[in-house]
């Protein structure tokens, strides 16, 4: 039985994590893998807590929520503190150091990148933080093919924003190249 690859994208409402989860799951579909994407969020559209889980597998996925993570992305300190101890032993942790200042656990697989600052600086707005960090995650973990991610982004964002988000994707890939251990 092939193993499930469990990913949790966590942060707060408005950071675009659920969209990132949908894009990742869609990329997995392009890779002809099985996938589930679930989410949990507070009643607020902006602020509050928000998380998206994506499980990618080659066999039937039973329980659709991630329970121990092969990869955790945290864009806020609160989300990071909440989930950090549920990472698997060899699991990958990616945090946005724009907001995550304290890490209670680090390993060889920990990546600390100021995604929001970079988004602001390079693309003029923090709005693409989700795509930059997701693309970083994809490149580091290899969980889906980069071209599948590209296709999924094109399908998932409004036509007017495709080029901006593809720039964000490239930026994420470059960062991964830079940070890769």
């Amino acid at each position, binding site marked *: 039985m092939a193993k499930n690859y469990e990913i949790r994208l966590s942060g707060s409402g408005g950071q675009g994590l659920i969209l990132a989860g949908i894009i990742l799951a*869609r990329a997995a579909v392009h890779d002809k893998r099985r996938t589930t994407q679930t989410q949990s969020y507070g009643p607020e559209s902006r602020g509050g807590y928000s998380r998206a889980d994506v499980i990618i597998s080659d066999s039937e996925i039973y329980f659709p929520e991630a329970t121990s993570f092969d990869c955790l992305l945290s864009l806020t300190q609160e989300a990071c503190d909440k989930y950090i101890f549920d990472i698997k032993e060899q699991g990958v942790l990616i945090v946005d150091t724009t907001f995550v200042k304290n890490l209670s656990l680090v390993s060889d697989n920990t990546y600390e990148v100021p995604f929001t600052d970079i988004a602001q600086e390079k693309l003029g707005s923090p709005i693409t933080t989700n795509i930059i960090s997701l693309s970083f995650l994809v490149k580091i973990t290899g969980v889906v093919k980069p071209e599948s991610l590209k296709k999924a982004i094109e399908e998932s964002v409004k036509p007017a924003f495709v080029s901006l988000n593809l720039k964000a994707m490239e930026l994420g890939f470059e960062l991964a190249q830079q940070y890769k251990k």
Partner: protein
Amino acid sequence: MPKTKTEKTKVAAVKEAPIKESPKKDNRKVVLMQGNEAVALGALDAGVNFFAGYPITPSTEIAEILAAELPKRNGVFVQMEDEIASICAITGASLAGAKTLTATSGPGFSLMQEGIGFAKITETPCVVVNVQRSGPSTGMPTSPAQGDIMQAKWGTHGDAPAIVLYPDSVKESYELTIRAVNLSEKYRTCVILLLDEVIGHMREAVTLPDIENVRVISRIKPTVPPQWYKHYDENQKYLSPLASYGEGYRFHVTGLTHDSHGFPTNKASEAADMMERLRKKISHNIRDLVQIESHKMEDATIAIFAAGITSRAAKSAVAAARAEGIKVGLLRPLTIWPFPDDAVRRMLRNVETVIVPELNQGQLIHEIQRLTKDKSDSNLIAIQRVNGRLITPNDILRKIKEVC
């Protein structure tokens, strides 16, 4: 022999399932789809052409998709002033000949109960989708719960038959929506589809069948001249033709207890006939109505009985326990009402322990208790959670290890 009977039930269930596998598999597109989206597409593929609803989390996507899609297919979408108006509008439209559906969640489902009773006593086809959320009252709108299982059966006042379906995946949400519409048309009643919040909002890769392979059932129209038409005609299966308003059959429909023509009655014999008809319509067709999934039950000594999202945690737990050599299986009802009594009795005969995980303070477990012979609960183990979080595979696995 219990085993053979299981097989028979399964065969009947498969036969009734509306989806046939398509021969040209490669042409079918795999899409990432949300549970609520699957319900909306299932409704359209089943021929639903009238939706009246009121937005409520976590069911709103169903209304949003149908608002966009129904006008393209000459169907009607109308956002009503509340959920009461919604159930009434779909019942009215159904009597005028439409295939109808509405979607809601706990608070709206509570408001709809009187209207659901009306659809049942007047034997009017319609489907109510309840994407359950944490309750009571406003509860936690974006959190899952399985608290409406009993309400789905007993929510409306008086004795009324209930057909309630309960999917565990996005694909099955599509399939059971079609089945719900089909059963509502066939049995002329309000069929309820219960979804878990997590299933309504979750996305999975789904391969939809070709539309020509979807089996659609529509109400039988009368063939007799209007003066011979009885709105509630009797036959062996308690299923009778249904005329539509505006087509020459000037029939009367009332929420009062009525005779076979639909006119109000106070006669004890006619009242008894009507109530019997409502009951037998369901009880004489259990084979057709009940669908169950039996997962690794062949040699199981421990059984888990779970529905919807909780059954997915159970399946993970079964896999993990079996990897350690524990003989455990899962019995999952796809039809929750009428309750799968026969399948549960067989399960109770064949296993030593039954674990019933559910996201409420004990609803399904009472039905299992009803069917246990010695009424001692020692071998019946509950896992219950009502804090807005799911029961996880580990929660169930721990219990399995405790009992074996």
